[in-house]
């Protein structure tokens, strides 16, 4: 499988983040082309391309845009989810730092297509340099006439506000993000109604991820068939795969959707020397973990789902045989406990109790029944909360017990066997 840089293709350019560099490399050509089309034509191209949302859920982007009512008198809004925080996920921030205009151009095209005159980029607060890059880019784009009143003489007006969050993972969930952007605690809303009709300020709103929108200019320039020529028919295009953890050369690798971990590990120099792959996440900590048995699963939305997990954000966190799965799962569960917004009882209380149980299991004070209690708690959280956060909190627990029950049992008598062995070696 060859590498196919589309979103990453400008990242090696000197001062890749500046308008001049961007314009030299196809920048804002797609916008000029788009403004010559009717909004519906753009939506049709995106529908035909079968682009699916890169924020994790993989919802068809063109369909989402098509849900926005037309010819109504209420304002429409475009909201960009740049609240990247899913553990293991690290591809939107480099994109915004290296090539912010790709996102800005995607925003202008999308806003024109869904007839929105106000767009907000909700970026996580802890990303101050990406915030700067976006602010500079928005200023440059405005000065060049790509934003503001009467964009490139088309009669279309658009304002973009770059809005920093304040440290809450839950705001990556689209309705919590909207509440946060309205100035409230970031807590998810009940759906339906969906943001397409009742989003920001209860008005029709599209919420798209950074990678989704940054793909749009290339799709306009290349056409739907060009995009669909990469990757599988139902999840086409390219994906930035983030390989992290116990790999020789961690980093961002852009390849067609449906590339396998075996192929990607080959590019990244394999698991660190002398070690074996033990467990990995296909799309962040909220997706059930995989093992070496899943090296050949094509990493696209449908194939990963068929293999029992989710493609999520292509955050491939790699762990090897020196890593303790119980410790890894404990730390993820502590994260969910800390970040649970507290709205739904199963998630709020369940993540607390699961953390207590995992802590005692990890230090060797657990019992066999604790495993059943964990699974029972997961069963009571899954599907019983407003948003997918609760489901995500159970993923690593249930999948790790499925694949590594013996390792949990080996902890019952005195804690982590790896750790015990290390102590023994030290004692001799």
């Amino acid at each position, binding site marked *: 499988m060859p590498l*196919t840089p589309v979103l990453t293709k400008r990242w090696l350019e000197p001062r890749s983040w500046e308008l001049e560099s961007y314009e030299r490399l196809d920048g804002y050509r797609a916008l000029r082309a788009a403004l010559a089309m009717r909004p519906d034509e753009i939506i049709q191209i995106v529908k035909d391309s079968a682009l699916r949302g890169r924020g994790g859920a993989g919802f068809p982007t063109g369909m989402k845009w098509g849900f926005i009512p037309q010819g109504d008198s209420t304002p429409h809004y475009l909201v960009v989810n740049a609240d990247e925080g899913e553990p*293991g996920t690290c591809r939107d921030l480099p994109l915004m730092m290296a090539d912010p205009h790709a996102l800005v151009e995607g925003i202008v095209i999308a806003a024109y297509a869904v007839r929105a005159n106000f767009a907000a980029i909700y970026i996580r*607060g802890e990303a101050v340099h990406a915030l700067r890059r976006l602010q500079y880019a928005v200023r440059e784009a405005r000065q060049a006439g790509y934003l503001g009143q009467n964009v490139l003489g088309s009669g279309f007006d658009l304002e973009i506000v770059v809005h920093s969050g304040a440290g*809450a993972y839950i705001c990556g969930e689209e309705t919590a993000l909207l509440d946060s952007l309205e100035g409230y605690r970031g807590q998810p809303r009940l759906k339906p109604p969906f943001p397409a009709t009742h989003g920001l300020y209860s008005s029709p709103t599209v919420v798209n991820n950074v990678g989704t929108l940054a793909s749009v200019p290339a799709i306009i320039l290349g056409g739907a068939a060009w995009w669909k020529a990469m990757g599988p028919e139902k999840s086409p295009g390219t994906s930035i795969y983030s390989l992290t953890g116990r790999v020789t050369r961690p980093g961002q690798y852009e390849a067609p959707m449906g590339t396998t971990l075996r192929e990607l590990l080959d590019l990244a120099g394999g698991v660190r020397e002398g070690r074996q792959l033990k467990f990995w996440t296909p799309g962040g900590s909220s997706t059930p973990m995989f093992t070496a048995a899943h090296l050949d699963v094509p990493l696209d939305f449908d194939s990963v789902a068929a293999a029992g997990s989710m493609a999520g954000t292509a955050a491939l966190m790699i762990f090897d045989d020196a890593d303790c799965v119980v410790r890894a799962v404990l730390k993820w569960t502590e994260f969910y406990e800390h970040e649970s917004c507290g709205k739904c009882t199963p998630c709020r209380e369940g993540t607390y109790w699961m953390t207590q149980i995992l802590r005692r299991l990890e230090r060797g004070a657990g019992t066999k029944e604790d495993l059943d209690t964990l699974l029972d708690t997961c069963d009571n959280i899954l599907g019983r909360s407003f948003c997918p956060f609760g489901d995500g909190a159970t993923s690593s627990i249930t999948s790790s017990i499925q694949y590594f029950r013996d390792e949990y049992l080996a902890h019952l008598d005195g804690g982590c066997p790896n750790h015990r062995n290390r102590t023994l070696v030290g004692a001799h």
Partner: protein
Amino acid sequence: MPVTEETRTKAREIIARYPRPRSALLPMLHLVQAEEGYITPDGIGLCVEELGLTRAEVGAVATFYTMYKRGPTGEYLVSVCTNTLCGLLGGDEIYATLREYLGVGHNETTDDGMITLEHAECLAACDHAPVVTVNYEYFDNQSEESAVRLVDDLRAGTPPRPTRGAPLCGFREISRQLAGFLDERPEARDAVSIAEPGLAGLRLAVERGERAPEYPEATLATTERKEA
């Protein structure tokens, strides 16, 4: 200490950015944090007055988000990622070392007022693990030794350059930037944005001569003819 008139003016600038005033609340809380390094009762008062909310409404929001600090914060907020990936790759040891070395725990500040330490959740830099941030600028691929050097340098008044990001400024200045006020320093504008892991795939593609298919001329001709 009552907020300054300049802050009140800035708060009104923030409100003007949004279709509805209350959307300004999060950036306004960043702004008032820039005054004294945390969310003060006077800071909450400003939000109450300018947005027509109750103290309870503003307080409910301010206490929900981790980045709003409830007590004075040091000149430098040092955040150590201890989520699973960074934690297993050394972040846990880095945090434990700094805690002992600085003699402070989570969300506590050194006596000289220079450093507030915290353990943080995933900072979205996993390809540079283990990661530490100072006032939210990245220091990539840290070790226990490098982290100790880092805090020594911060306390000595010789802050090192981040691996990616602008030269460090103080916690209050960063809070001002988070309120949406642009960092106009040329050195911030020119600062390194991407490091080797971010470029790993692209470099390999260049080396191997691999690329995405070219845009078809026919499509370009159709879309761009319409424009002409």
